[in-house]
């Protein structure tokens, strides 16, 4: 196995009094795809923010531990330096530049790129191939795109930078099944071209299929980690993240309903 591209040791982070990450260690070997799973609030997005050093935008901070990329510590850098070091993130919740056109959003994606004009043109062509709708709507303002189209734009924008390591925070959020598959293929493809990927995904099935290694976070701590196929076989992961349940769907639903409180009708006036 090649050397570790991203090396996280004992990372802790929090938002004021809230401790969102505790002593998280994670290794991402060069040229690999690593998935991070976890339920709501587990700290996945916090982890990515800590790597990209944007926690301060949310009133949070790293309180301990180190992050190194290619042997270089990222701790203490500004977010743009992290980008310059070759890391690029697709943040959670799309975050397209709503008032800028689609084309300008893609140009913004290329701001941190190191490649020359030709490389950028090639990147743009690839993004357009991947998401034809972005070519069609080049002149439309990004904020007017549909949710899924915005997600495509967010991913496409990150691809424009041509990073060494791509951090993806729920790239398939709100994408139709067909499109989610296409994203998965893209991840495989860019990985094949040498880009390492750190993938945070709710769609654990896809994530575990793409990744070589996976980590499971719970309340800020790594509770499980290992090769993706092993994790995919574990009961805990199957139940909580893959949604594989033994009963058939109907029984499952009725069981869930029974387990849940019911809401009385509001009588007030």
């Amino acid at each position, binding site marked *: 196995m090649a050397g570790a591209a991203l090396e996280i040791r004992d990372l802790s982070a929090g938002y*004021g009094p809230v401790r969102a990450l505790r002593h998280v260690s994670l290794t991402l070997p060069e040229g690999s795809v690593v998935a991070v799973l976890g339920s709501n609030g587990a700290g996945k997005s916090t982890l990515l923010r800590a790597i990209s*050093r944007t926690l*301060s935008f949310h*009133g949070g901070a*790293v309180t301990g*531990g180190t992050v190194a990329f290619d042997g270089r510590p990222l701790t*203490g850098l500004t977010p743009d330096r992290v980008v310059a070091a070759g890391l690029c993130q697709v943040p959670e919740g799309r975050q397209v530049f709503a008032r800028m056109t689609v084309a300008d959003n893609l140009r913004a994606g290329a701001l941190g790129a190191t490649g020359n004009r030709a490389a950028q043109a090639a990147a743009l062509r690839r993004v357009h191939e991947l998401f034809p709708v972005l070519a069609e709507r080049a002149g439309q303002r990004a904020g007017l795109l549909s949710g899924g189209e915005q997600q495509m734009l967010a991913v496409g924008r990150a691809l424009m930078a041509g990073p060494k390591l791509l951090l993806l925070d729920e790239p398939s959020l709100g994408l139709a099944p067909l499109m989610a598959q296409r994203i998965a293929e893209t991840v495989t493809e860019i990985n094949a071209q040498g880009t390492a990927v750190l993938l945070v995904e709710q769609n654990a099935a896809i994530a575990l299929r793409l990744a070589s290694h996976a980590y499971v976070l719970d309340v800020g701590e790594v509770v499980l980690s290992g090769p993706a196929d092993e994790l995919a076989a574990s009961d805990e992961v199957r139940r909580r993240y893959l949604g594989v349940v033994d009963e058939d769907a109907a029984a499952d639903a009725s069981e869930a309903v029974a387990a849940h409180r019911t809401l009385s009708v509001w009588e007030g006036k």
Partner: protein
Amino acid sequence: MSDPIKRLRRPALWTAGAVLLLALPFYLDRFWLQAGLFAMAAAIGAIGLNLLTGSTGQLSMGHAFFLAVGAYGYCVLAGDSTGTLTGLNLPSWLAAVLAVALAGVAGGLFSPIAGRLQGAYLGIATLALIFIGQHVLFNAHDLTGGFNGRDVPPLSLFGVTFDESELLVAAVPFGSAEKLWYVALLALAGCALFARGVLRGRPGRAMNAIRDHRIAAGVLGVPVARYRAGVFVLSSMYAGLAGVLLALVFQRTVPEYFGMILSLEYLAMIVIGGLGSVAGAVVGAVFVSLLPQLLTRYSDALPLVSAPGTGGVAPGEASRYLYGAAVVAVVLFLPGGLVRPAFRRRKTTTSEESP
């Protein structure tokens, strides 16, 4: 600290504060009372502006206009018709009430324009109000008295006239400033409580929703246009009341006062005190209106300040430096305003850098 003490501390503080405020006219000289009155009037206006700008997110740089409507409205309604000036000679308390209503009407008339605009565009559009206001104040001589303004008829309420005629209370001569002090205090308390009620209740939530997400607010059943207009009217009425009070303190209204600087000062008040909070508006108003007064008054005692003509920094300049610096410093170092110093503890980069 045991719980009952903790619980009693707030009311005790409030009572002490109230007693102090009530006692001040017996001790302070007229200069300080006047300064306090300016601050109280400003606080009322600032609360109103904070309802609009802080809580509903509608930037207004035209608040001085509504202050002017209140001030001049009162003068015209309560004043006599003399020579070139028109006046309706209404009972002064009624005039004050109507002047506030008039300011509300003015706000209502502008609200269709305000309803269409957002952010900086709204802000600068309201700036137009200032220019319109100044134009009218300078030109409508028979109503406003033009450049030199017009006299403000004293308020009389329950048989007490709030003018210079001296009234002995506990051997202390009560002139207009002393008497008005209590009116202003009452008005301020009323306005603050009212605004607090509005902000904490259903209207306040709707206002915040409009500020944070206009479309979602509509979908949740908030009639956005109506609410925006309503807040604009309410805020103008606050400004109108502030204008009436200011007029009573000044005893003369002059157009020069109701210019852009005044509007910007009100904005500075709410930002310094804390956007969206009543206490913030009050604190900010006190800060902004007392600071220059203090600085000018004690300029002689300030270091580095020298008499005019000797080449050093003149007192007036020194006070402007300090004022400007105070505005910058408060906003930078207390981002939530003076009343919320610990609102969001800022993480310094140093802690991030430590391994």
